[in-house]
């Protein structure tokens, strides 16, 4: 493959950014226009939400367990026996603000984003998207809007569900397996945890949901070149949305206030 100059690479990156930005703009423009595709929205809510429950359960459970294990070890080793009860707020904060939104975002980009790209990509190469247009249907309204809305609403639900599973597993490791004082663990957690910490994770997940859906749909609609093209689109979807999630996570964390309490 011929190597590209840095200028050409930069230009290509801006072109791609422009294309995805344009799709996002058109999606927002069509968000409230008729006809609304309620049936597809319901299907997507089920696909993104209900069908992702097993994978989110496993991810959150083991994320909670390993985070609980490392936090317990840290307190036990560096502060001393008895201090492990302070692991509660750290586990809860870390899971709700950072770990669960990121893990769920990455899992959903792999499970749902890639399937959106594959489905829409197959429709593209078999002219089904052209057929939509020929029947007077707007492909953005029919394909992209319901998927974006569904991802926007379901990601926070999944993250909230993941938070509960993860926090319970962190509790299980520390209190049930390692014998940390239950009352102190819970008391410390409730004392230091704010609703805002959980809300931060949910706000992030809304953004991640939109990113996953828009990138998946964009890659699907850009698909060219048969089965190989569909494969490429799915891979690119996972890579682009995963990297975007990690980068956006940092900036949203920096942008949102750490606490809503004064000081």
């Amino acid at each position, binding site marked *: 493959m011929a190597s590209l100059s840095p200028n050409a690479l930069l230009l290509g990156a801006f072109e791609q950014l422009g294309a995805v930005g344009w799709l996002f703009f*058109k999606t927002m423009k069509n968000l409230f226009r008729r*006809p609304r595709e309620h049936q597809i929205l319901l299907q997507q809510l089920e696909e993104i939400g209900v069908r992702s429950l097993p994978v989110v359960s496993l991810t959150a459970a083991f994320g909670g367990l390993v985070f609980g294990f490392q936090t317990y070890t840290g307190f036990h080793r560096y502060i001393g026996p008895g201090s492990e009860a302070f692991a509660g707020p750290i586990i809860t904060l870390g899971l709700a603000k950072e770990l669960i939104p990121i893990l769920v975002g990455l899992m959903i980009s792999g499970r749902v984003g890639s399937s959106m790209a594959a489905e829409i990509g*197959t*429709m593209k190469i*078999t*002219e*089904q998207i*052209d*057929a939509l*247009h*020929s*029947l*007077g*249907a*707007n492909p*953005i309204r029919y394909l992209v809007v319901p998927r974006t809305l569904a991802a926007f609403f379901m990601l926070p639900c999944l993250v909230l569900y993941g938070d509960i599973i993860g926090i319970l597993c962190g509790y299980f490791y520390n209190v049930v397996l390692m014998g940390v004082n239950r009352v102190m663990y819970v008391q410390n957690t409730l004392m230091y945890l704010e609703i805002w910490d959980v809300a931060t994770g949910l706000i992030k997940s809304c953004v991640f949901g939109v990113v996953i859906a828009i990138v998946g749909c964009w890659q699907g609609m850009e698909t060219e070149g048969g089965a190989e093209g569909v494969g490429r689109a799915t891979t690119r979807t996972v890579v682009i949305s995963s990297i975007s999630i990690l980068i956006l996570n940092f900036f949203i964390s920096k942008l949102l206030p750490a606490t809503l309490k004064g000081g």
Partner: protein
Amino acid sequence: MIRIIDLHKSFGPKVVLRGVSLTIEKGETMVVIGQSGSGKSVLIKHLIGLLKPDSGEIYIDDVEITRLDDDELLRVTRKFGLLFQGAALFDSMTVAENVRFGLERYTRLSEEEVRKRVSESLALVGLNDAECLMPFELSGGMKKRAGLARAIAYRPEIMLYDEPSTGIDPIRADAINDLIKKLKNDLGITSVVITHDMVSSYKIADRIAMLYDGEIIEVGTPEEIRNSKSAFIQQFIHGQAEGPIKDW
């Protein structure tokens, strides 16, 4: 009426259309012939707004469509029915759901009327018993007929056919030719047919236009095309490898 004026289209360095001009009268069946890869499908996709030209104008009933925004274009698009070369059925829907897709979204027909229209359209193409089948259960020819049923269910004013007889047996192909003629005669539908099947062309065309090297090189009645002095046309209609057309 459709008027195409000086249409140009390139994909990267590849020039596909270099100044196509063509007028199709209301109620007329225009057959566009040309080699595979000569830009016939690209031309038809411009008519329905699936592709934007690099330059040139397309008028559909005096509305210039190349500069319309998405929603205005979709309103014009609803005048069209398009039979795709590969049928392009929605593979997650049954045949009946495919046919009713446009009807239930963009018409004010009642559920009963939609159901009746779906049955009528499927009966017209001989697929009465296929309503509940999924596209993957259909043969290539059946898919094409289901695609045609979907396109005509809407009762379009203009039908575009992209290779209607490709991939189906000669008897079915002739039945589709008869159907194209019937739609023109009974409903006064304007038709643009893209094909390289000369038997079909002579049977259904009011006029035939030959697209070669990105330009329309001749337009005439089937008789005029048959008797054309152009060596390009004679080579094409007789299917000869020897002649001025070399790029095959």
